[in-house]
């Protein structure tokens, strides 16, 4: 037994504060974990001191000769203040994640020789069987305490239920009662808490007040992106300290960050898979971005939901939403990061016209379709295992779709598929899609989206609205939000000129277009392309004018594609983009385009007008000689390549100068890749590909 005074000594040492005392619930949680080996979920606002609880518990258990603590957290690394607290307690905390793979053997040795006291891994690691078998299992036999950060993700009802957490639940359910478990979260309403309890069983709940007394909230409806860009440009600089701007898509994160930088505001885009020059992988770059913000070296990070989980910066001055999040819990999770260690911070939620469509897309694409699932199960049925690449050859699905299906199937328990090394194998487990569950979750998300609308238009106190929605025990008006004050925290106005400039910026948001380099094996029998395309056949880096339906040119391209004629305005816009911003060098001396049998004149007619504007000749030398399936129906590399084999021929005068190769909608870019290679073979100069829009969402 360890008593409260002894634990208090540890707390004071951890915080380096001789006068510190336990916050409500801290000692009770420690007592339950170390003295009664109990299981506990604590629902406490960010900054309450959850890490103090598990570090002190770790210290006590280690002093009794127990094994190290395993912390499962979406954080890439412990926050600096956590590391310092751990160090003061003499706790050696290690992180094993994808950024330090080369150190794994050494880290494993440290853990196996019992020199580590705490080990931080991400939930993604826990759903990797190889990692579990080779790295975790050998050291798991001594784990003394298990901590699950962001425990609300366990629940189906959590706003951002993650497949990896589903796997984690299955692991936790199978751990005997003598493994103490601590779940922590800052965002869970009663339904989520009840669900976590139902899933883990035999686990106590402790909840504290979620109200953030230093946070001033405000909501604004600004329908157009141009207006929101203008508002950001004119007001972000005056917001307190540094902060986070949340967007719904990666594309928006990039766009907003670019826009802010153009207006002299240092901002960086952050999302899963973001890459930065000079960094080995995305995780390393993300950690760098987190540090930049932590050290206040930039004004803002423009992030998707990839940032937030566990990100703990005491002096975060503001959280602004460029688009509305999908639920109240998601919003509280994000805005709750602001102002926990300072007297004043702001949380501003902007909502625009496109939000609804984006969330509709998220909901409809959250689960794989029956047909995809069935085709993958069929493919695996008669095999002893296939790699993802082999699956691509067998089923006509996108790599992303294949991965979504495999992930979806593999977190079920029991699961119809299991991964062994790089091989996906069918298990002897019958499978049926749980449509009821999918429908229930989809409807739940619709309800949550409705609640966010209620928040945006709430006439009363905004903090009280959040607290009520989160089932806080004692919701009260905050006296600080825009509603309580009866006036905006930050002015909702912006100048007309900036808005016009924002509109122009959106229309100038062309995207680099990279064609393919490596062809799928055995896909080009007629053309004989194999392996890596030789440099001499590759195209240059081209441009895409817009994204399908976006706020710049995307909507106009989409409309015109349906009506069968691209308006002159688009030819003007492309010519302006080529002349003023892209400036391909060597400049194209002639134009050609991708032919279509279904719409023989749509693209060629546009290309001809573009040729006139650019004052260079148009030669339609790419001829289609074979009817193939629509390329947009080809879902992965192998099928996309094979569908194009022998389809085009070059016919007529091919100039040896640089050429602009035009298409309307680009998806995988294989069509442009093949046409460019054929043009080069026929003797053309460098090929500059150009498309009006891209069909991928970039979410």
């Amino acid at each position, binding site marked *: 037994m360890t008593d409260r005074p002894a634990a208090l000594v540890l707390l004071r040492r951890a915080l380096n504060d001789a006068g510190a005392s336990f916050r409500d619930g801290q000692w009770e949680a420690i007592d339950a974990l170390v003295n009664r*080996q109990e299981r506990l979920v604590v629902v406490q606002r960010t900054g309450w001191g959850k890490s103090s609880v598990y570090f002190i518990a770790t210290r006590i258990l280690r002093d009794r000769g127990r094994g190290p603590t395993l912390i499962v957290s979406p954080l890439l690394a412990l926050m600096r203040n956590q590391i310092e607290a751990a160090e003061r307690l003499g706790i050696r905390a290690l992180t094993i994640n994808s950024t330090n793979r080369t150190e794994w053997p050494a880290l494993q040795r440290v853990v196996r020789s019992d020199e580590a006291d705490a080990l931080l891994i991400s939930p993604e690691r826990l759903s990797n069987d190889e990692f579990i078998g080779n790295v975790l299992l050998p050291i798991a*036999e001594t784990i003394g305490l298990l901590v699950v950060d962001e425990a609300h993700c366990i629940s189906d009802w959590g706003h951002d239920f993650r497949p990896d957490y589903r796997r984690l639940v299955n692991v936790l359910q*199978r*751990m005997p009662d003598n493994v103490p478990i601590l779940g922590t979260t800052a965002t869970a309403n009663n339904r989520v808490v009840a669900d976590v309890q139902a899933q883990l069983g035999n686990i106590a709940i402790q909840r504290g007040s979620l109200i953030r007394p230093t946070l001033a909230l405000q909501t604004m409806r600004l329908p157009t992106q141009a207006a929101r860009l203008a508002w950001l440009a004119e007001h972000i600089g005056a917001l307190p300290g540094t902060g986070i701007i949340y967007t719904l898509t990666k594309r928006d994160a990039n766009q907003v960050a670019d826009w802010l930088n153009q207006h002299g505001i240092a901002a960086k885009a952050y999302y899963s898979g973001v890459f930065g020059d000079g960094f080995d992988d995305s995780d390393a770059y993300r950690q760098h971005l987190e540090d930049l913000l932590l050290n206040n070296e930039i004004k803002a990070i423009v992030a998707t939901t990839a940032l937030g989980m566990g990100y703990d910066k005491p002096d975060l001055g503001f959280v602004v939403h460029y688009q509305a999040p999908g639920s109240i819990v998601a919003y509280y999770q994000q805005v709750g990061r602001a102002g926990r260690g300072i007297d004043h911070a702001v949380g501003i939620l902007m909502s625009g016209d496109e939000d609804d469509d984006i969330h509709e897309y998220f909901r409809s694409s959250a689960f794989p379709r029956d047909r995809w699932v069935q085709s993958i199960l069929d493919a695996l049925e008669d095999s002893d295992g296939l790699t993802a690449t082999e699956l691509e050859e067998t089923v006509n699905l996108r790599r992303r779709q294949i991965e979504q299906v495999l992930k979806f199937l593999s977190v079920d328990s029991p699961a119809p598929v299991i991964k062994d090394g790089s091989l996906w194998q069918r298990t002897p487990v019958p499978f049926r899609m749980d449509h009821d569950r999918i429908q229930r979750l989809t409807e739940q998300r619709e309800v949550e989206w409705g609640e966010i609308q209620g928040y945006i238009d709430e006439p009363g106190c905004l903090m009280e609205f959040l607290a009520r929605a989160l089932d806080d025990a004692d919701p009260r008006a905050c006296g600080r939000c825009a509603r309580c004050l009866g006036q905006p925290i930050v002015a909702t106005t912006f100048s007309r000129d900036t808005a016009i400039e924002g509109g122009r910026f959106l229309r100038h948001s062309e995207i680099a277009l990279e064609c393919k380099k490596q062809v799928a094996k055995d896909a080009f029998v007629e053309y004989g392309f194999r392996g890596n395309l030789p440099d001499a056949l590759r195209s240059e880096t081209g441009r895409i004018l817009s994204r399908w339906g976006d706020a710049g040119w995307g909507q106009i391209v989409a409309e015109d594609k349906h009506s069968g004629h691209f308006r002159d305005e688009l030819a003007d816009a492309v010519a302006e983009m080529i002349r003023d911003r892209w400036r391909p060098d060597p400049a194209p001396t002639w134009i050609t385009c991708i032919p279509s049998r279904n719409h023989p004149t749509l693209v060629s007619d546009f290309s001809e007008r573009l040729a006139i504007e650019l004052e260079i000749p148009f030669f339609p030398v790419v001829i289609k000689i074979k009817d193939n399936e629509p390329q947009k129906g080809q879902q992965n590399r192998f099928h996309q390549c094979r569908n194009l084999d022998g389809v085009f021929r070059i016919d007529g005068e091919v100039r040896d100068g640089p050429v602009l190769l035009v298409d309307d909608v680009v998806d995988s870019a294989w069509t442009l890749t093949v046409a460019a290679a054929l043009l080069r073979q026929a003797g053309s100069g460098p090929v500059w590909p150009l498309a009006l829009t891209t069909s991928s969402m970039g979410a």
Partner: protein
Amino acid sequence: MQLTPQSQAMMLLTVSFGKSDSADMKPLSNKEWARFAIWLKEHGLDPAALLKGDLDSLLAGWTDRAVTIVRVRSLIGRGAALGLALEKWQRAGLWVLTRSDPGYPELLKRRLRAESPAVFFGCGNKALLNAGGIAVVGSRDADEEDLAFTANLGKEAASQGFSIVSGGARGVDQSAMLGALDGDGTAIGVLADSLLKLATSSRYRKRIMSGDLVLITPFNPEAGFNVGNAMSRNRYIYCLADAAIVISSTADSGGTWSGALEDLKNTWVPLWIKPSTAAGSGNPELVRRGAHWLPDDLQSLSILLTNSESDPGQSKQEGLPLAPRSRNEEEDLKDGAGSPKSGEFSEETEPSFAALPAKHPQAVNADFYSLFLAHMADLTSVRSLTVEDISVRLELEKSQVNAWMKRAVSEGTIKKLTKPVRYQMTSGERQQASLFGDEL
């Protein structure tokens, strides 16, 4: 499927989770576990109690040079590893069967007593484990002729309603099992390694899903091949069967040889040897040591379950269809009309932690014929059985079985099948038997 705390404790104490076990962490062997379990039982402790509470006080008085309290503490402390390992195994569709679970093969408990494993991992139709069958064993590197013979034997067993029990290794094992499965029969594979891999292989996966195959192993389902494990699992093949056939063996070496000798020594099941004249074959020597030549004009495999009287090599087993009867005479007498099918261990072999099945007290008050019918409902739920088979399983005289059979057939509760003569509960009765006690 969630394990009971008792099963969790048994797994923590006896199963290897990782790839390396330090001395302190070495899981208990079958014998060590049995020793420990009996002590726990004697002291009124459920293994689940070890998960909570202070081991030093719970185990005060337990002294064992090998099974130290330090070792027990380390093993019990592997809870996180148990969760991780079990999650993967169950996700792949594997199940866990501990000695205290209903459905644990009775024949193993009776024949091996303390040596029967505390935990089996498996995949497929559990009911097959209690349905007996014919064990077929032999070399991994058998020749074509032997393999063809084996596959045929498997098919024949299938058509006569017998399961094949084998080891799942390549060669003879695999031919026998696939032969039976291809003949729409059933098979039990007792694996020495790689349960997870075999369960997901296209070769066996569909058979598992259709309920015709069960694969089990007492070892970590991801363990690789290991000679010791391969040797020690042979006894389970014999003990799950009613008779055994050796296709090919090498004299004085290999698992087939030592497994066959083990069966001869313990007289678990009648042992039959395929005639072989190949140089270096151990087959003749096995017959010399007490096994029987497999008749080449064999019509009905049910003959293998008893010992053919024309065979001179069988004297030592004469009149004793199964070994446990001779060794457990006393226990059999106590059990009267046959021991209960599921659940608990018999008192002297192994302590029981499972609650007694509710039907047990009722059964004591039933007349012998009703008891017999209740057992028949269980026994023939998977397939029909011959009289020999039934008498062996229920440890009754054949004449008694015949008498009751006659009555049951005339009452229409049991139907008689021919070629060979077999009996099975009629489907209506089977259903009723399963609804018994749950009439609403």
